[in-house]
């Protein structure tokens, strides 16, 4: 029996420690997914909370023979979409959140400036994608789900995932090529 299956069995028996173990196992990846989709830390925490409350309520029905990561991500992606639909807020960029994160007490030294610049460029490019393309990129590239798992999470056929990934890649490439900051940095580096 897998670790997830064992936890599910214990949770079904009323074991809250097992539920806490499940939470700590998946909280980071779920939180990162919600954060990357919504671009809002508060919304990501709210989605994480709702996700585990719903997961607990549906624990009797879940198929414990499979890993729980795709199922939990499916819940949190839907909750993130709901938040965007409810607030009518388009997740343009993670910049505000990331700036707060990076400018804390342990902010990076000056020699990280170039890496920061590149990160910022890529973040902007990801932020310019449509919501569906962005979700596919986050799940496939960032979270490392397979095409089939991504299709399950987004509740669409694998072919749709492939086409969204293809379009997202094209959009990212053209966005990165058009970015003057990156072109000038690379040109400077080649001199």
């Amino acid at each position, binding site marked *: 029996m897998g670790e997830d299956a064992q936890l599910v069995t214990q949770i079904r028996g009323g074991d809250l420690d097992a539920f806490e173990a499940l939470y700590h196992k998946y*909280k980071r990846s779920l*939180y990162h997914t919600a954060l*990357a989709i919504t671009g809002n830390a508060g919304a990501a925490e709210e989605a994480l909370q709702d996700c585990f409350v719903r997961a*607990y309520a549906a624990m009797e029905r879940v198929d414990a023979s499979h890993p729980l990561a795709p199922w939990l991500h499916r819940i949190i992606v839907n909750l993130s979409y709901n938040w965007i639909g409810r607030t009518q807020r388009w997740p343009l960029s993670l910049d505000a959140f990331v700036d707060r994160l990076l400018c804390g007490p342990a902010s990076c030294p000056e020699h990280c400036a170039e890496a920061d610049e590149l990160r910022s460029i890529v973040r902007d490019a990801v932020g310019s994608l449509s919501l569906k393309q962005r979700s596919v990129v*986050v799940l496939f*590239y960032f979270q490392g789900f397979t095409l089939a798992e991504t299709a399950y999470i987004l509740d669409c056929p694998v072919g749709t995932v492939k086409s969204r990934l293809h379009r997202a890649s094209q959009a*990212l490439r053209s966005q990165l090529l058009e970015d003057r900051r990156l072109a000038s940095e*690379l*040109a400077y580096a080649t001199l």
Partner: protein
Amino acid sequence: MSSLMQRSNAGKQLNELWADDEELGQLLRWSLATSIGNAEPSPEVWRAILERVGERRASGSAQHTSRRSTAPLTALVQTALIGCVVMTLGLGVRRDAIIARSNLAASTAPATERRIQGEQPEERLVGSVLSTTGEEQPYRVGGMIQEATLPG
């Protein structure tokens, strides 16, 4: 001119660099992981989850208990209702059978005779039934229906 060439060279390099999806994937993974990879949800989230799950468990067990306590009563009411329905149906069937039999016994006479029971056959034949009702009947004069008062 030289800046244009530099830009063109840079574009070529970027094209080559991200022609492969895997390269682009690596760049995305690195960018997102270093941007938000260290982000953690606050401990408040787990506390809030625990609170909501606790409420859910409490309300669930309360519902379960109340369901168990009302279960015998519900079963009793259901049994009584079913009993009533069965009895009603049973009596209805028997009554139908009796009525059918009595109807059968009563319908041995011809239908025309049953409709005006109590009247003498000769009265019907002479039409004296109409004259004995006491009601005045309209009559037709010159295509118009007149009141029942007879002239004279």
